[in-house]
């Protein structure tokens, strides 16, 4: 009986690994109302990303976007974090696993440790800290919110235990701490153990570990990082001189011919190296010479190709297509100068050598022996490269039911792909759990709200230094002193990193101790941190609307770092404004409405159907809107994947299940025509069928899976000659008419047709693997045929590289062409003649081809994404794909809450990637759908009936049609419908309308605070 098994299953998920993937999965699950146990072998979570200085393609330090999620918040009520812990045994089955967790001794009581660092100052050899996590590094602004916020002791012989215990003011040292073993019951598991970086010491020709100026890309990242060993100063290790000429060598330890290398491509390193080169030139000097030695530039992610173009054209990063064979030191009178010579052979076969001040080895990723052992312990199959084996059509499910994988352990990848997989894994893990929440949500125990009405304002001001972000530009103590003399400010103090757990507690304690009834935080942006500070004062018994943030970082120190005096003045003014404003802040009540749990999915391709089925299986009612007569989308034209899976059968099954599902309403030949509302209460009008009748759908969230279009450029005799086809056409031919293929003598493929060109600058992601796929299939049918692939960069990331290598081993010829020197194609009877420059021979080659397959990619459906973008009010990229909320960390959420994107509507991608993103969108959707009510906030317009003249101006001005004249003859605004835009309040001639939280007196007081000294 399925039901009884479901009912008895555990409601908890174990997440193994606290890197970006594990954190995302845990947060998603927690937001879905599920309980999570998050374990990490390290003593603080964060993984590899915390060691990065900046991330591509925005070149931002993006951790601030994530760190508020990591510090204490309501979401974490569901997450139990157990650091220094490994999964040592597993028994049971999906839905009912028993996991044995082994925790190493930390010798520190996490509950008591305040992270003061006293133990580290006195016993630096016995206390662990990880680069990038060191909150005391003089210039650290990176990641001071280490979670858990506690040190860890390395017990070793000869340690002065007594001294160590005495060093701790909090009495947190536990000298007798021991290894602990516990068994927990869980329903499913997410493996997010990450990967380790290749150690190039085994390569004898690059001299890593011998010449100190040869560093790895991660070490270079640490040199760039403000919290790194050089405190952000770019100096080379041997003599601390600033290098002027730096080389990056790509594919070190990957795509391998070298000793100890792996055969696959590590995927993320091309962008990683480009980013380091760009940041070097951007941050240090335009005179800096940056050279990348590469095999193929694999910039395949969304808009990554544009990043490559920027690197070349805007930043002058020099690219050399070559794999250098040696790095040798330059000696002067027998001793090394620190300079290095790279010897390499160029495309045309000529031997070169060039001197550099510093060489960065761009090292790839591999699975660590511990992770291999973990997989063996729990019985998860590995692929030939020791990564978790998964199937294309269910990319995050391991071979063991109920065990899912995300991030590097699935295959080498970058952060956005990891985030997608993490949300997909979270969404999959839920399927094994009890469908309905049987455990009660542990409601946070909040103290009753203190009544502050009628009290004199007692304002507390807290000013962050945010590492050096604020404190490095303005003198925080002076800002504090300025605030202290403002009227009704009873407390003013510096707070360091205001968003760290420790500081939040200080603020709460100060509220209680000084009986504060208003709070100002001089901090960063309310956009990212307002919620956190609102929660904080609420927990101390104040209404959450009694806090005001003075945005000292984003609006002052970040924009005026070169004008400290002016920045200091502005900081004072911002604080004055905030104090004046908060003085009049009133306690407000949030409006809530019941959540509509129905789902609208737009687009019935693989991504749309996958998301719809996932949500429908979990009990949600789904409306699936497809504009064509049939479901299936772009994938209906694809027959096989690179790995040989039968796409046709898969799509057929998907369509059958979708159409038969009793919770999915499929609307074919239908399209969206209008839309109103907000997350939890959307209303979307669709036009249905040939009759084009109108139907209004009410739904809580929306998933856009509208796909892309195949590009069909009119070059190379495309559509004009029978021998010329596309990779899709060839795919069909290979399945349906293999006999034709057997008679071919010569086959030519041209890559990047209609992609990476001015009309469509981005890479289409799928065409290189499609060419390799079809070349291998032709080879299997016809071993005699000559197959030539004309390419610009072969982009077969991850394990696709295996197939590219196979193709070369089987004699498929790959020849580079430059975009300014495209191949020439002419009709030649029933054949076509293709001529191109062979770079190795250095002369033109002419082939009479029986088949010319053009690798055409994808373009956004400009007209329809524009239409939907207008109707849903969603932004798009310049080339017409939907623009996600954050390219790095939120690749599935669209900027409007309640909207998610999946599949090729986001960017060109493979079926496998589309499925992962669709599962992820279904997961992200559940973080909304799990709520029973929608919080509308308190920012709504209210009408003072005594002042209202019923002039109808508000009725006409409101873009949402909310105000109406009520029976008493004055304007009324339903707070549940009001969007809080404030237009009516600004238009009302009688000043009868006020927007709560932005009342006139409030705004005027803020301006008074700014202009005080001027008036």
């Amino acid at each position, binding site marked *: 009986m399925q039901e009884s098994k479901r009912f008895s299953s555990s409601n908890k998920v174990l997440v193994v690994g606290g890197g970006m993937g594990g954190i995302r999965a845990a947060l998603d699950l927690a937001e879905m109302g599920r309980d999570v146990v998050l374990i990490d072998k390290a003593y603080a979570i964060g993984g590899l990303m915390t060691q990065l200085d900046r991330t591509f393609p925005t070149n931002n330090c993006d951790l601030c976007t994530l760190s508020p999620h990591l510090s204490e918040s309501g979401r974490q009520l569901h997450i139990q974090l157990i650091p220094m812990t490994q999964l040592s045994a597993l028994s049971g089955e999906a839905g009912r696993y028993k996991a044995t967790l082994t925790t190493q001794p930390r010798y520190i009581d996490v509950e008591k440790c305040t992270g003061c660092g006293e133990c580290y100052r006195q016993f630096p050899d016995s206390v662990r800290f990880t680069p990038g996590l060191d909150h005391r590094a003089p210039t650290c602004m990176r990641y001071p919110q280490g979670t858990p916020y506690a040190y860890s002791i390395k017990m070793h012989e000869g340690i002065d235990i007594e001294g160590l215990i005495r060093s701790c003011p909090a009495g947190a040292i536990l000298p007798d701490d021991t290894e602990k073993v516990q068994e927990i019951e869980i329903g499913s598991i997410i493996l997010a153990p990450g990967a380790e970086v290749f150690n190039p010491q085994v390569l004898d020709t690059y001299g890593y570990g011998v010449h100190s100026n040869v560093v790895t890309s991660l070490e270079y990242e640490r040199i760039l990082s403000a919290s790194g060993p050089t405190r952000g100063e770019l100096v080379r290790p041997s003599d601390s001189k600033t290098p002027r000429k730096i080389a990056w060598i790509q594919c070190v330890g990957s795509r391998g011919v070298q000793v100890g290398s792996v055969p696959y491509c590590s995927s993320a390193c091309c962008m990683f190296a480009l980013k380091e080169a760009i940041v070097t030139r951007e941050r240090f000097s335009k005179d800096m010479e940056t050279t990348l030695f590469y095999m193929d530039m694999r910039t395949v992610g969304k808009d990554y190709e544009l990043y490559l173009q920027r690197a070349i054209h805007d930043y002058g990063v020099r690219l050399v297509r070559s794999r250098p064979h040696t790095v040798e030191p330059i000696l002067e009178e027998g001793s090394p100068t620190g300079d290095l010579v790279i010897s390499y052979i160029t495309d045309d076969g000529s031997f070169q050598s060039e001197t550099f001040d510093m060489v960065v080895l761009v090292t790839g990723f591999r699975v660590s022996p511990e992770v291999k052992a973990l997989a063996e312990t729990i019985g998860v199959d590995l692929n030939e490269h020791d990564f978790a084996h998964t199937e294309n059509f269910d990319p995050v499910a391991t071979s063991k039911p109920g065990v899912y994988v995300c991030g590097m352990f699935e295959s080498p990848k970058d952060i956005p792909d990891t985030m997608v997989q993490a949300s997909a894994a979270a969404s999959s893990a839920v399927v094994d759990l009890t469908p309905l929440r049987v455990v009660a949500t542990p409601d946070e125990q909040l103290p009753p709200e203190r009544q502050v009405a009628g009290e004199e304002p007692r304002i507390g001001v807290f000013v962050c230094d945010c590492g050096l972000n604020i404190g490095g530009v303005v003198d925080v103590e002076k800002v504090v002193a300025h605030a202290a003399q403002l009227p009704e400010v009873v407390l003013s103090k510096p707070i360091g990193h205001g968003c760290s757990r420790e500081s939040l507690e200080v603020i709460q304690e100060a509220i209680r101790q000084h009986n504060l009834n208003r709070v100002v935080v001089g901090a960063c942006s309310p956009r990212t941190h307002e919620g956190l500070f609102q929660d904080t004062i609420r927990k101390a018994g104040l209404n959450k609307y009694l806090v005001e943030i003075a945005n000292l970082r984003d609006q002052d120190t970040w924009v005026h770092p070169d004008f400290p005096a002016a920045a200091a003045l502005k900081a004072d003014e911002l604080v004055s404004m905030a104090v004046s404003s908060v003085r009049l802040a009133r306690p407000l009540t949030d409006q809530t409405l019941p959540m509509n749990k129905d789902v609208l999915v737009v687009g019935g391709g693989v991504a749309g159907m996958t998301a719809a089925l996932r949500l429908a299986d979990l009990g949600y009612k789904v409306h699936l809107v497809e*504009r064509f007569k049939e479901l299936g989308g772009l994938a209906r034209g694809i027959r096989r994947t690179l790995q040989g899976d039968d796409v046709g059968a898969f799509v057929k099954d998907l369509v059958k299940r979708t159409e038969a599902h009793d919770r999915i309403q499929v609307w074919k*030949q239908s*399209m*969206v*025509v*209008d839309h109103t509302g907000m997350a939890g209460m959307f209303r979307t*009008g669709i*036009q249905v069928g*040939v009759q*084009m*009748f*109108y*139907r*209004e759908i009410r739904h809580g969230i929306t998933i856009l899976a509208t796909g892309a279009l195949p590009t069909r450029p009119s070059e190379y005799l495309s559509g004009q000659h029978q021998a010329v086809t596309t990779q899709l056409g060839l795919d069909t031919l290979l399945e349906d008419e293999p006999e034709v293929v057997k008679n071919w003598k010569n086959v030519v493929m041209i890559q990047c047709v209609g992609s990476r060109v001015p009309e469509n600058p981005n890479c289409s992601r799928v065409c290189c693997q499609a060419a390799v796929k079809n070349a291998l299939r032709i080879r299997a049918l016809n071993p005699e045929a000559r197959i030539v692939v004309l390419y610009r960069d072969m982009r077969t990331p991850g394990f696709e590289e295996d197939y590219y290598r196979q193709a070369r081993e089987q004699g498929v010829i790959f020849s580079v062409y430059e975009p300014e020197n495209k191949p020439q194609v002419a009709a030649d009877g029933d054949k076509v003649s293709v001529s191109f420059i062979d770079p190795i021979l250095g002369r033109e080659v002419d082939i009479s081809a029986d088949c010319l397959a053009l690798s055409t990619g994808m373009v956004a459906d400009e*007209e*329809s994404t*524009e*239409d*939907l973008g*207008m*109707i849903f009010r969603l932004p798009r990229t310049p080339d017409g794909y939907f623009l996600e909320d954050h390219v790095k960390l939120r690749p599935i959420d669209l900027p409007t809450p309640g909207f998610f994107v999946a599949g090729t509507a986001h960017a060109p991608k493979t079926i496998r990637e589309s499925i992962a993103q669709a599962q992820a969108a279904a997961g992200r959707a559940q973080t909304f759908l799990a709520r029973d009510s929608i919080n509308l906030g308190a920012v709504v317009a209210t009408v003072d009936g005594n002042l209202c003249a019923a002039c109808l101006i508000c009725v006409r001005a409101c873009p949402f049609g909310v105000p109406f004249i009520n029976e008493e003859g004055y304007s009324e605004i339903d707070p549940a419908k009001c969007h809080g835009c404030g237009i009516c309040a600004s238009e009302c001639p009688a000043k009868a309308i006020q927007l709560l939280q932005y009342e006139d007196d409030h705004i005027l007081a803020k301006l008074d605070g700014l202009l005080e000294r001027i008036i």
Partner: protein
Amino acid sequence: MGCNLAQWADAKGLDQELERTRRKVEAGAGFVVTPPVYDLNLFRAFLDRSRDLGVPVIATVFLLKSVGSARYIATTEPSAGISEEMIRRIRKASDRENECVRIAGETTAALKELAQGVRLVTLGWEHRLPAILDYAGL
């Protein structure tokens, strides 16, 4: 009592449809209702052909709702007469919904001179009827 004309695909289809309608008129239909009109020239050509039916012609004005719905009709019913220019016009408008309403209004105004009556089909957007009539100057 009147009757509907189905959308025809080409000249031959129109002949057949007119023949069918003629029989319906003979059977007692007092007026005919056309398929949606998007192209006035096409409609004028149709009027020339339908004159000998000898009954009043009621033209249908269908309110387009988005570029998507215009594209859908242009793709599935090319003979309905939605031109690329019309799609471009909606696309370029700052308020597309309003442009669709304006087109329906303009078509209605023009048909007032040509047909004996107009049937407005708004399917779900009845709240835009007054605006269509405003644009039609009615």
